[in-house]
């Protein structure tokens, strides 16, 4: 199948990985998102909660399309936080954070749609789920894609 030689042989994709991004950016962005989601929970089933959840969902849409580095949270990180903490040489592949943004979009988007359809409880429920994911990402660096991707891939029909 393969006759490459060498100490580390890579059959995975990282070789053609796109330009890396500062790994602290997506985590700081997740922290900002977590704050907003906490406010959504406190606003409970009000219209204000629905509007704020829609704002969060729109931010996730931006991140799912442009990558986590293309969100307004990333802009806040670059203009407010980065000048204070200084640059780092560390880089990470932008694709995992972008996948996380898509996961966030599915959760919060479902909450917004159900909320608009009159299922008021869906707003705080979606906010709780998204908050768990955002805090795990921001505070612990948990990579949701790493935990879920293979499980989903395994239940999907084999090629």
């Amino acid at each position: 199948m393969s006759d490459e030689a060498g100490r580390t042989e890579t059959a995975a994709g990282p070789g053609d990985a796109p330009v890396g991004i500062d790994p602290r950016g997506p985590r700081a962005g997740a922290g900002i998102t977590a704050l907003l989601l906490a406010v959504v929970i406190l606003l409970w089933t009000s219209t204000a909660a629905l509007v704020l959840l829609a704002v969060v969902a729109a931010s996730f849409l931006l991140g799912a399309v442009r990558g986590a580095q293309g969100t307004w949270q990333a802009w806040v990180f670059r203009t407010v936080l980065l000048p204070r903490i200084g640059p780092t040489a560390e880089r990470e592949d932008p694709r995992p954070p972008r996948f996380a943004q898509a996961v966030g979009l599915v959760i919060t988007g479902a909450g917004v749609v159900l909320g608009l359809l009159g299922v008021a409880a869906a707003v705080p429920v979606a906010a709780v789920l998204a908050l768990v994911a955002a805090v795990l990402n921001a505070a612990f660096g948990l990579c949701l894609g790493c935990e879920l991707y293979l499980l989903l891939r395994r239940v999907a029909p084999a090629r």
Partner: protein
Amino acid sequence: MTPAVLPALLLLATLLATVVLGAWWRRRQGVVRSARGEPDDAAGAVVDWAAHGVDLGERRTFVQFSAELCAPCRATARVLGEVSASHPDVTHREMDVDDHLDLVRAFGVLRTPTVLVLDAQGREVARASGGMNRAQALAALAVGEGPETVPAGVRA
């Protein structure tokens, strides 16, 4: 109108549960588990590793299952690449789970990265899942070898 205390309690409970979950998750990262217990009928004994493009090292081989959407896989690949580069009898092979779903299923791999440690015959002696650091990689190398061959300072 819902009393304001209910949302606040839910928020607090959510944060607490998340912190517990996150702490538990982080403790499991890269922890090395010995495969002793299921010696000969383990999947590793019947896998033709060469057919999967894996050159077995004379001492140990790291087989790392990775996915594209996985940042800790990159860091782990770096660590294992360095460790195998400094040990001539150890090799490291990174496999994309999408291309090796048969192996993923045979070995019951559930998350990425998962690292199998194989002996010279291709049998699994240990495995770890989640991001691995250098100390954990060295500890994984020492599994199944007599305590006299355990390099000093593994428990860094």
